[in-house]
């Protein structure tokens, strides 16, 4: 007898979690994967891409290429694009929360993390045309010169996202880099990559140009050393790097005098309205440029 009920039931379409590089969703060039299970039942949720150094290389290339246009956009424009990301996040809030929950958070925790994540985009969106006024200056030099200092983006920033909160932690670190005109190559939470990869879909459907932000999932130990030694990466946010791995990363980073930034999540946490988000986080990925010009007739 034919089991009609089985035939009638609709098979759900599973999502393939891929990388997000240059505005596209490639599989890792290595063809490798690693399984992601639910926190509780050990049920397989997805086979995440086990990104390789070549994926990283492609991402850095894309980020470098995107840098001039992104840093050249008006502050107002960058602010609107970040706000747009918040809007799209909002519309995907349920999906993001479900992924967070499946990976081990309670429903209320997951909802709270998504809300905070969205609010963080809004917060940094609003800073786009304000932080230069905060960190720039006109300097009263002792001579007939007009002298001013303006913040400018550092360039290509590597961000190693924390393991948890995977989404809020990552966004808290990439949003200040992006609003300041940097382009980003981020390594997602190794154990909980799914919401971060979905974040790629948010980017893809918002207005952020291809290459401005790139997301690589995989095994951190395989990826971080390549990021650290990459000569075309100007700065690294090491927030998601284990204390034990830090020395090796920082040594490698010295080869092209990378700026190293590390958010002290253990001390501050991710919920402190004053310290887990602030314009000082934007300034960490800014270079101060000082311009002199004579004043004469």
């Amino acid at each position, binding site marked *: 007898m034919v089991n009609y009920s089985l035939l009638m039931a609709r098979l759900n379409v599973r999502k393939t979690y891929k990388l997000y590089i240059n505005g596209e969703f490639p599989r890792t060039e290595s063809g490798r994967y690693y399984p992601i299970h639910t926190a509780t039942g050990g049920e397989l949720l997805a086979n995440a891409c086990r990104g390789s150094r070549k994926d990283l290389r492609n991402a850095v290339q894309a980020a470098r290429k995107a840098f001039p246009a992104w840093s050249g956009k008006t502050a107002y424009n960058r602010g609107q694009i970040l706000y747009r990301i918040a809007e799209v996040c909002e519309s995907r809030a349920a999906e993001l929360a479900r992924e967070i929950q499946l990976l081990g958070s309670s429903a209320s925790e997951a909802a709270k993390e998504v809300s905070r994540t969205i609010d963080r985009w809004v917060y940094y969106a609003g800073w786009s045309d304000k932080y230069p006024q905060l960190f720039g200056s006109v300097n009263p030099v002792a001579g007939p010169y007009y002298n001013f200092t303006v913040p400018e983006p550092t360039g290509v920033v590597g961000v190693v996202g924390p393991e948890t909160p995977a989404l809020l932690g990552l966004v808290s670190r990439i949003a200040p880099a992006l609003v300041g005109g940097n382009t980003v190559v981020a390594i997602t939470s190794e154990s909980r990559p799914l919401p971060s990869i979905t974040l790629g879909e948010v980017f893809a459907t918002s207005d952020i140009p291809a290459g401005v932000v790139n997301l690589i999932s995989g095994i951190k130990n395989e990826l971080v050393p390549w990021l650290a030694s990459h000569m075309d990466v100007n700065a690294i946010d090491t927030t998601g790097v284990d204390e034990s791995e830090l020395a090796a990363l920082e040594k490698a980073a010295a080869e092209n005098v990378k700026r190293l930034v590390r958010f002290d999540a253990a001390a501050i946490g991710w919920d402190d309205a004053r310290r887990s988000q602030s314009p000082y986080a934007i300034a960490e990925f800014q270079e101060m440029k000082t311009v002199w010009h*004579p004043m004469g*007739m």
Partner: protein
Amino acid sequence: MTETAIAPNLSRAVAPYRRALADALELAIPVDAVAAEERAASLAKRSLKKDSKVWGLKLAISMMDLTTLEGKDTRGKVYALCQKAVRPDPSDPEVPPVAAVCVYPTMVSFVKSALGQSGVKVAAVATGFPSGQTFPAIKIAETRQAVAAGADEIDMVIDRGAFLSGHYQHVFDEIADIKEACGPAHLKVILETGDLGNYDQIRRASMIAMFAGADFIKTSTGKVGVNATLPITLVMLECIRDFYHLTGKKIGMKPAGGISNSKLALAYLVVLYETMGPEWMTSDLFRLGASSLLNDILMQLRKERTGAYQSGDYFTLD
């Protein structure tokens, strides 16, 4: 004749004297005020030891256009000045005569006879000095008469009104006409830099004057608020240098007014030397227009000779 476009920086053989005003304006490149002033200030800090100082002060005297340009000038006053010009310090035969005595046209023939065979030149201001606001025919006639009366050199003023309103051709033509009227006399063109507003304009006026036939370019009449300064002189010398490079013709420079002490006179010589080199260190190519400077230099020279600081009581006021 059609206008043939010739790039200004071609060879000296081809380029000269075509498109004269256009060339002048093309060489009137911008000047950065702060940097020019800094350069002049740094040159003023050059320090000279005794030998160079004494040598320089004597050179400064030999470059001096001893000047009196007052409504109350009389023969008596001018005669005394001529005496001083020929023998600035009767007690010291090493002190050379000045380069020229500079007076109003009516004094020219008198000065000429007073100076006799001393070799000191007679310079006359002309062309409606100091404003230049009179009729072209009168300017030409005044120049001719001054030369006829014996002037070796004519110090003309440019028409600043025309210059500032952009009528460069008018300024150019007037200078050329006066040059023609000068005949054998040398022409110094006073830009009245204090009226021009900035260094860009000074450079433009300098170029126009040289292309129009000036033998010297001169800063000031001494009748406006701002007279010669070191940076203005530096900028004008740089013009002379560029003009020389293009045409091979050496133009003289005359800062005038406000050069009242020895230290400043030496600073002018430093600017001259560092900008133009030793070739320009001659009264044929550099003059200092001054009146009170001479006594200060004489006092300084005597101090160097005797070792004692001097008093004005011992130097004649002429």
